[in-house]
């Protein structure tokens, strides 16, 4: 880790450590901790997606489906069968991984729009299953009665406890993903992103790596889904539809695809924008979202984090250095 990044990471950890206390000081911000819990859950999804999109160069519109598989896996196993929540989380993750592998092998042979279409189709199928398998998922009226989660013999309750639990997962996923990116695999992924044929010629196992990253992103999404299920304690198919898949992609693009920091910043900002700051636009929210995506694609294609990084480097008259994957 470069010292710059180390500073940023320490800063982030300190920020997260004090956030619940600081936000509780003022009544106007006391609910920000709730927004941050959701932002953390979504960050788990987008960190995986960022690896897939920004580094392996594969677009997926199925992340909400994997998010949902994790959520319903936990919901059904703990609600109907009274499993331990952690065992249920593991089971949900395994199912998501298996499904991602089965879907990924043929789908990742496709490129560009076709891959997006295939993952979109898969997402729609999962959404239909959630709606129609009433006996298992509760169908459109939703699945309730999901128990809370226990850690070291204590029930996680209260917003601060949830905040720390969720963000501990996020930091772990962040560090692990960063580690992957700076390994042999990460370099191979970037080679695939730049030129698949060239990468293959250099001996990179392109298709198996792509499938592995896809599975990894599904695993993170499923963990996020499981946390969502236990936190909200109620699931309905509307929380896992195509619109959410698009939102996840947008979060990654907004922050910057080529950077894990981008996924974090994009997710937190857009979660706040969607729940706090865009409320005034109401019906036009979707237009504003579209506008943000358009402006970003046209003027800031590298994403907010990379753009700001470059901006501040220029300001401090430093020679720009080639961006490394983790910055």
């Amino acid at each position, binding site marked *: 880790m470069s010292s*710059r990044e180390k500073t940023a990471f320490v800063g982030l950890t300190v920020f997260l450590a004090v956030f619940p206390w600081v936000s509780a000081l003022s009544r106007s911000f006391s609910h920000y901790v709730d927004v941050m819990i959701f932002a953390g859950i979504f960050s788990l999804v987008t960190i995986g997606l960022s690896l897939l999109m920004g580094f392996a160069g594969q677009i997926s519109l199925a992340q909400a489906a994997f998010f949902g598989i994790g959520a319903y896996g936990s919901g059904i196993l703990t609600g109907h069968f009274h499993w331990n929540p952690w065992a249920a989380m593991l089971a949900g993750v395994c199912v998501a991984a298996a499904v991602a592998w089965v879907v990924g092998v043929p789908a990742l042979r496709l490129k560009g729009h076709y891959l997006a279409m295939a993952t979109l189709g898969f997402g729609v199928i999962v959404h239909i299953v959630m709606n129609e398998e009433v006996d298992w998922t509760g169908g459109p009226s939703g699945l309730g009665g999901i128990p809370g989660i226990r850690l070291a013999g204590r029930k996680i309750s209260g917003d601060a406890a949830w905040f720390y639990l969720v963000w501990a997962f996020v930091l772990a996923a962040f560090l692990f993903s960063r580690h992957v990116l700076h390994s042999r695999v990460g370099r191979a992924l970037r080679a695939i992103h730049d030129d698949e044929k060239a990468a293959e010629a250099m001996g990179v196992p392109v298709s198996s790596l792509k499938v592995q990253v896809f599975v990894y992103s599904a695993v993170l999404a499923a963990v996020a889904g499981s946390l969502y299920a236990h936190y909200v304690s109620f699931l309905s198919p509307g929380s896992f539809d195509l619109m959410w898949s698009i939102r996840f992609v947008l979060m990654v693009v907004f922050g910057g695809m080529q950077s894990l920091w981008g996924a974090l910043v994009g997710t937190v900002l857009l979660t706040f924008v969607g729940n706090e700051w865009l409320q005034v636009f109401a019906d036009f929210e979707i237009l504003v979202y579209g506008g943000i995506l358009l402006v970003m694609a046209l003027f800031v294609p590298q994403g907010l984090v990379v753009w700001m990084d470059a901006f501040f480097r220029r300001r401090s008259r430093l020679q720009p250095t080639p961006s490394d994957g983790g910055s």
Partner: protein
Amino acid sequence: MKAKSRWVAGVVGMAMALSWAAGVFAPARAQAGTEPYKVGAVFAITGTASFLGEPEKKTAEMIAEEINAQGGINGHPLQLIIYDDESDATKSTLAVKKLIKTDQVPVIIGPTQSDASLAVAPIAEEAQVPLISCAASYKIVEPVSERRWVFKVAGSDKHVVGKMYDYMKAKGITKIGIMTASTGFGASGREELLRLAPEYGITVLADERYGPKDTDLTAQLTKMREAKVEAIVNWSVGPTQVLAVKAWRDLKMDNIPLYQSHGFGSRKNIELAGGAAEGVLLPLARVNVGPLLPDTQPQKKVIMAYTQAYEKKYNEPVSSFGGHAWDSLHLAVAALKAVGPDPAKIRDFLENTKGFVGQHGIFNFSPQDHNGLSKDDLEMVVVKNGDWALAPW
């Protein structure tokens, strides 16, 4: 290293500035004179359920204006804080948490939809803030031991089915066929239709399901005819309920009466069916048929007052959904008037409210019943000359 920490500081600074601004520029709360009484509201004003949430929001705003124009509640102005959940259960969760923590309201009305209401019910329970949902699912208030703080003002499907079966019994119908859409609404209706049939001595000979986006219901209706049913019940919302009427008419099955759910209760559906809807029967809340009620009906006065005020202000007809907002807000106001802005006292007041005359019926709450309505709060209505008419018993 410096550059990085500087921009990190920049991002953090910006975020803090934004959140500060969001807090400071929030609508000024303190008013001169007496402290306002707050009521929080969460409606699906936009998104897929906006056709429900929009009239709810308009109704609630209109009532708040009326109350404040008359000097408020015991001299305290009513401050209504409305959030839009965009028909999304996750956003509903956040909105309710915000109402509890940041706005610190003593009572919440809404959310609009059943799934959102089920998602927020545990939050209200934990925070011990009374919540009056505008959605229908009976699970919102049951089991009552886990829903001490949650109430709902929309009737349950069992009331609608009960009313329908009462009418069938009066007409000597015992063999029916049901067709339901595979949505939350349809699934819940189907469950109650099947569950209550034996109680009324009714046999369900055909049980057909279809997708909410199906474009042809001929097959389902033909099966009903083959099963020799004496009446057909269709339970759906949206285009399929009009489709069912048209197919029923086209197949010349009008000798078998067609019953619809209360979801059919909008004049637009009669228009869309274009004459084919003559004779369709459905149980409907009285708020939809105010002018048809006899003057002796105890609800007539409040329904007519609401209907006239709403139609004058917004130039559109009243709907069931606006009626839910009316009932929930007026209940909250009655509680505030009686016991002041204390969540626990409001809860107790609501639970013991009896004979509250609202748009959807006369509410009689009890510790066992947090809905307070019964099948007798519905009217059996028939489509006659392109309009509603009370069905002859």
